[in-house]
């Protein structure tokens, strides 16, 4: 390993973030942060709205002045650099949709080469091969000559990731990159980012609301919550220590440590027995809890539900009366009218 190869791409040194105010004391959101992102790491910044995610991202990117401390990318302090130099150290991808339509995908990705081109913006052979490589990485080389408004939202976001790749920076920062996307595209973007971190050895830092995706894709999670210290760790550590549960605690739902999902709290009505298990049992149970039943496998009261797995049918046993149901919707309808 050579001397100038550093494992830590991003370091914050006693960083305090917040807003300077003219009259009152400074509004400090978080203080004394010593954060690191290493080479090849995908770090997800999680936290509820208003916890200061954007402020932290903006401060790290040098767009906002820290109250104290500094951000270093490859040991270089960001705030002492001008925009052109920062653009060679970190690239950004934002939530906002592009407002321009009649630009080609190739042209947009070529803007990522701005820090390296002359004032004329003429692309060298190296620039062009970087642009091609970046578009291939996100699987959009075939769309290079298309206009950006001919692409779907997921593809547009991949174009912006390609722009960040073309910028050839050790650190890529993404501000809620999956915010406008549907589930398949969200999964696809996270998978792509994880692969990119591993294959290109870049450090990738992204803020997101997607708890489940972050738990699956991130190497490290930075967990922010209002008026509390930031918590750092592997996703699994944060789940086991109960930090995630604490942060997202709410009256109307719970974080279930076993499944890694949020469970909505419904008003509990009555107990009901469910006979049968496996996949069909799992989904039947979910439907019943949504309706407010407390599902058990022991005998309780006079009502029980039996699964006929080979026929995919449900039977309601109520005081010796048996009602047959073809699907779960039917089952719930019957339960609501009969009980």
């Amino acid at each position, binding site marked *: 390993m050579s001397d100038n190869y550093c494992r830590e791409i991003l370091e914050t040194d006693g960083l305090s973030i917040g807003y300077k105010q003219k009259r009152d004391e400074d509004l400090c959101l978080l203080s004394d942060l010593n954060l690191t992102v290493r080479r090849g790491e995908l770090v997800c910044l999680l936290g509820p709205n208003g916890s200061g995610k954007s402020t932290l991202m903006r401060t790290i990117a040098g767009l906002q002045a820290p109250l104290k401390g500094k951000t270093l990318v490859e040991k270089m302090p960001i705030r002492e650099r*001008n*925009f*052109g130099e920062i*653009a060679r150290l970190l690239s950004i991808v*934002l939530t*906002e949709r592009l407002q321009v339509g009649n*630009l080609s995908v190739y042209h947009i990705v070529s*803007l*990522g080469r*701005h820090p390296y081109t002359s004032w004329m913006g003429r692309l060298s052979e190296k620039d062009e091969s970087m642009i091609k490589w970046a578009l291939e990485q996100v699987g959009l080389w075939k769309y290079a000559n298309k206009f950006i408004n001919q692409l779907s939202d997921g593809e547009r976001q991949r174009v912006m990731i390609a722009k960040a790749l073309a910028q050839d920076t050790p650190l890529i920062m993404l501000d809620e990159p999956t915010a406008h996307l549907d589930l398949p595209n969200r999964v696809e973007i996270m998978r792509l980012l994880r692969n990119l971190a591993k294959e290109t050895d870049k450090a990738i830092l992204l803020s997101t609301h997607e708890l489940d995706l972050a738990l699956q894709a991130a190497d490290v999670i930075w967990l922010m919550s209002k008026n509390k210290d930031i918590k750092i760790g592997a996703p699994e550590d944060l789940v086991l220590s109960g930090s995630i549960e604490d942060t997202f605690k709410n009256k109307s739902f719970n974080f279930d440590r076993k499944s890694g999902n949020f469970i909505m709290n419904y008003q509990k009505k009555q107990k009901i027995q469910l006979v049968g298990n496996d996949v069909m049992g799992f989904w039947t149970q979910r439907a019943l809890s949504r309706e407010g039943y407390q599902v058990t496998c022991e005998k309780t009261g006079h009502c029980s539900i039996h699964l006929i797995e080979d026929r995919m049918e449900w039977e309601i046993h109520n005081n010796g009366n048996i009602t047959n149901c073809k699907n779960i919707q039917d089952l719930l309808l019957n339960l609501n009218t009969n009980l």
Partner: protein
Amino acid sequence: MQNKTKIILFVGLFVLIALFLVVDLVLGSVSIPSEKILAILMGEDVKASWNYIILNFRLPKAITAILVGAGLSVSGLMMQTLFRNPLAGPYVLGISSGASLGVALMVMASVLLPGVFGAVYSFLGSWALVVSAIAGASIIFVIIGMASIRISDSVSLLIIGIMFGSITGAVVNILQYFSDPEQLQSFIVWTFGSLSGVTWNEMHLMAPVVVLGLLMSFVLIKPLDALLLGENYARGVGISVNRTRIWVIISTALVAGTLTAFTGPIAFIGVAVPHMARAIFGTASHKVLLPAVVLIGAALMLVCDILSQVPGNQTTLPINSVTAIFGGPVVIWVIVRSRSVKASFS
């Protein structure tokens, strides 16, 4: 669009400009055969009065038309990109309002303060209007420039520009209310716009300043392209948005301020031509759009100048009306056909 198509379009525009230039020189109240015009341009002495008309009247007017068309269109394009607003134009920051306030003061305030303004007026002579317009535009430019250093978002700057327009407009109204019909008329004639008022003497000042402003805008192609992605992305690829904004404002003020001073406020061209260029070339890239608006603006302005000379008649229509009456339908047609506004400012 293929590069080949673009090159053909550019060549076509050059040919059109050359054609319109010839027509513009040929047409006029005195008919001069076109082969004689070529001879006059080559420096031959054909006939003293013809020589005078071509060299000292029609040629500077045609050059002015080209400069106005190119300059105002480029300023409009830069303002539309900077403010991400399809309605922005060269005058959106109040440059023309400043100029008209200067002219109004010069023309009309001599009634209110006869001693001072009368002396200034007679001292400046034919340059009086130009100097007062430049002074008015410069004051507004300095105020907007200082505001742009303090205020970092473009929308607020746009609103401030519009407010200045309203304030100066109100002051001009008050001046009009108190002035004599005669002075009122000479102010209103100035607001009609005119390409024929520029003599060679004045051209020596106007042309270099406008060309300098245009050259500055070509240096701004790279940051302007980055601004298409929005200000945050532009910063992200290493563009200093504030510095770009200030240079754009300086270049616009130079070009639009100078042109307005010499020709009066010529509306419409600056807003319309960038949309035509986007529709014709189908791109938002400034590397293509900037030369395109220069050529389209020059061609359109030459056409307007040709149309403003009522055939077989001594009178010419006010250029400001001609640009809107004949250019308006063209732009509406282009926009309806290509929907390029939506693609550029969605």
